[in-house]
């Protein structure tokens, strides 16, 4: 009967919510500071931020080279 499957479903929802309610939570100010620090620390290793020079750009349009 659909009645008891509703009950089973509700119990699962309650169980999930109980679990999620018990999580430890860190202050947003701390979380924000950590994310910022990560970005700052890795900024120089981010080619899309620092830019890619044409000599080292793997996607540059192929140029024909010749030995002179």
């Amino acid at each position, binding site marked *: 009967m659909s*009645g*008891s499957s*509703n*009950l089973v479903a*509700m*119990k699962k*929802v*309650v169980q*999930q*919510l*109980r*679990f*999620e*309610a018990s*999580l430890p*939570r*860190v*202050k*947003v*100010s*701390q*979380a*924000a*500071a*950590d*994310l*910022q620090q*990560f*970005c*700052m*620390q*890795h*900024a120089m*290793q*981010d*080619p*899309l*931020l620092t830019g*890619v020079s044409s000599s080292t*750009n*793997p*996607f*540059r*349009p*192929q140029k024909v080279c010749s030995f002179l």
Partner: protein
Amino acid sequence: MAAEKAEIDALKKECDGLRTKIEAARKAVNDGSMSAAAGGVASVGRVQLKNRKTLKGHLAKIYSLHWAADSRQMVSASQDGKLLIWDCFTGNKLVAVPLKSAWVMSVAFAPSGNLVASGGLDNMCTVYNIKAASPKTLRELDAHTGYLSCCRFLSDSEILTASGDTTCCLWDLETGKQKTVFTNHIGDCMSLALSPDQNTFISGACDSLAKLWDLREGTCKQTFSGHTSDINAIAFFPNGHAIVTGSDDCSCKMYDLRSDQEVIGYQDSSLNAGVTSLALSNSGRLIFAGYDDFNCHIWDTLKGEKVGVLSGHDNRVSCTGVPEDGMGVCTGSWDSFLKLWN
């Protein structure tokens, strides 16, 4: 039965109480905004990337792309019924994989580079060995009862899938069977992403929720709400402590996993197009988000400001990807082209 109704009512009441408790706990740690905290951070200025290459070869809408771990090869999927594997340094096509079903929605490259997987309206995830003389079907993973929206390899022996049947699934590729089924979403699952340490993954769904799952235990650990429409795209921030989502509600959001809440939103009143895809630059400072307005807009992750745009496609940008070495970004579109930018 009256007794059962009473029990259900009591459970509903407990649910409401728990939801209130969760909101209160989130509020209690919400002691400052991310954009305010970023006040002292230098601006990235205008990010102007150039279109270095346009990859032509597909004959119909491109639905998905995925970079190989070598940051050189990339696989794309089109509803012309083909997967194409590209050498992005030369622009050459290396392999073409003909699909049994042209209605492909997702494609993935295995970290080893030996396998690719795809799936879509056929409800299956098909895994191909692309190192054989001609692409060989290795496995057809057939248990979802809805379309395959996303797939990601953990290794050559395990793959994760997300489906329109509202579940995600971890498969054993040696046996071709489901190892774990992740159920909790109440809408079609549209996207998934693996954590950098591969212990957890995140999923975005049409129920407008994002969920964090424990891969080995099979349980949902956290649920993030706030979007008002389908979440089409999801990615981890590079340190694994935050996630970014993109939605049909025209916004992207960042949720911090340890604060268990949204910490910043990325939206602009002039942007009235849904977000289809997104990828982060290696430092996490830039978000590349593909939109239905034919553009890929670039956001400053920390400040929440739009800092650039990749324009050039003649139709919806359906997929976006940054390779592991972070050297560029690739966009794929319904206009049948892929573009490489840096």
